[in-house]
């Protein structure tokens, strides 16, 4: 290549650059060359730009502050100056650019001008800000653990909520497998791996279970696991959101225990005589109480080998078809075990309404008073044949 071709060659090279602005300034900062990349960035044409001072692109505040001169001076003194900042385009819109200024020196060493390379980082800046906002958001979440795992389950990010929840700081967990928070049993059962597989398959997973803190104590965690997908839909990692539900779980268990105790109290089975049980029913029978009642009665029958059970309904306000069905089921189950039942305490209005409702009690014996029912029960126990007839085949 001839020496004389060199400027033309550089010209061509620079003209082919469209994503960057690469221009020459004179020693005072006046624009002395232009190219398509510069036009793309600033929207000015060569005619509009060449001969203009570099402040053409500066914001009013930067001009007032004399920023352009300061930057050129700094570049001349240090040999290179880098900065980022807002610049104004021809249409008045602003772009965020990164700028590198390099002085061009004469053979005698004096500054003859500058090369300015600039790139539009507006979009990148927005992404960075968004990222930072996202990070700040995560850092602001103190009551939830919000962390990122890679596709293999290795912890890749950590937040203050996670510190609070587990007691571990970021350095202790990043790069380690998420199963470190699981109990030994869950580790052996590969629970973490299973959860990730389900989340990847179903698009998310909600689970609850015991997790272990740094100090060895455990907490009841509610965990949401969602896969992070790339453009091809491949799982590249997981977002894990967890919170401590230990207290809520304890409260729920307390409520459950109290409910059990109340049920226990509300379905007492009393042994009144050898082989005779009384089940006094009080209040409204819902299906849960009825199921519990059947269960406890049958268990008691097995325990005491009771031959007769008296179901006293004088404390039940009304017998509708639902309650009647429950009673009949209980009677039927008792019969299968070999125990006869007697209904007692049916009031006249209940008798009327039951018949009007079409409730059929089959061969179940009924007495209006508990005393009569008990007498009948004792007779049945003493004359086993009677029981056999009652318990046995019904025509």
């Amino acid at each position, binding site marked *: 290549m001839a020496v004389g071709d060199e400027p033309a060659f550089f010209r061509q090279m620079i003209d082919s650059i469209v994503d960057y602005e690469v221009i020459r300034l004179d020693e005072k900062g006046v624009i002395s060359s232009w190219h398509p990349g510069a036009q793309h960035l600033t929207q000015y044409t060569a005619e509009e730009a060449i001969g203009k001072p570099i402040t053409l692109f500066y914001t009013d505040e930067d001009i007032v502050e004399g920023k352009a001169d300061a930057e050129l001076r700094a570049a001349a003194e240090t040999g290179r100056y880098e900065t980022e900042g807002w610049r104004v385009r021809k249409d008045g819109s602003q772009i965020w650019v990164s700028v590198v200024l390099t002085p061009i020196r004469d053979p005698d060493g004096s500054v003859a001008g500058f090369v300015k390379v600039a790139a539009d980082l507006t979009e990148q800046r927005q992404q960075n800000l968004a990222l930072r906002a996202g990070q700040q958001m995560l850092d602001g979440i103190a009551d939830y653990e919000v962390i990122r795992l890679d596709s293999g389950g290795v912890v890749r990010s950590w937040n203050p909520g996670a510190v609070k929840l587990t007691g571990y700081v970021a350095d202790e967990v990043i790069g380690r497998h998420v199963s470190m928070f699981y109990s030994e049993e869950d580790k052996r059962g590969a629970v973490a791996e299973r959860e990730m597989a389900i989340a990847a398959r179903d698009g998310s997973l909600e689970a609850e279970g015991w997790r272990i803190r740094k100090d060895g104590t455990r907490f009841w965690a509610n965990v949401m696991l969602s896969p992070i997908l790339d453009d091809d839909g491949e799982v590249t990692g997981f977002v894990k959101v967890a919170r401590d539900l230990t207290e809520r779980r304890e409260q729920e268990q307390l409520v459950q225990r109290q409910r059990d105790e109340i049920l226990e109290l509300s379905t007492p089975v009393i042994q009144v005589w050898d082989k005779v049980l009384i089940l006094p029913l009080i209040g409204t029978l819902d299906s849960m109480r009825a199921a519990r009642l*059947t*269960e406890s009665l*049958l*268990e008691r*029958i*097995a325990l005491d*080998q*009771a*031959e007769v059970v008296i179901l006293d309904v004088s404390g039940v306000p009304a017998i509708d078809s639902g309650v009647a069905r429950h009673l009949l*089921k209980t009677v*039927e*189950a*008792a*019969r*299968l*075990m*070999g*125990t006869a039942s007697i209904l007692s305490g049916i009031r006249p209005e209940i008798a009327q309404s039951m018949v009007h409702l079409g409730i059929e009690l089959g061969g179940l014996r009924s007495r209006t008073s508990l005393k009569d029912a008990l007498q009948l029960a004792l007779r049945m126990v003493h*004359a*086993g*044949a009677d*029981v*056999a*007839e009652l*318990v*046995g*085949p*019904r025509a």
Partner: protein
Amino acid sequence: MRMGPDLLVTLQGDLDDRAVEQIEQEITDQVARTSARAVLVDVSGLAVLDSFVARVLARLVSMVRLLGADATLVGISPAVAITLVELGVSLRHVNTALNAEQGMVRLRRLRDGEASRWTSHDDHG
């Protein structure tokens, strides 16, 4: 197992089609051969008592009755009783008892009652 004029049959484990066939054959043979008056079938040892097994038991009772004996099921546990009721299997025409002893007493009383009814009938007639 034989107890006086009664037979006690204890069913255990799983009942499949073959076992059922075998049991039916053995029991009917035994009842016919010993002229047993009553059969107690203890089901407390069965692993499962579902609608299939319940049907098998009902069938067994019918067969025994045809051979002139009474049959009683003993040893239905609370859980099984609830399951059968929920399944809608009532075994309505089958005698039940809490245990073998009670079952035996009931069968005997039933028999005595029948006998006395016959006697009284004869007296009047």
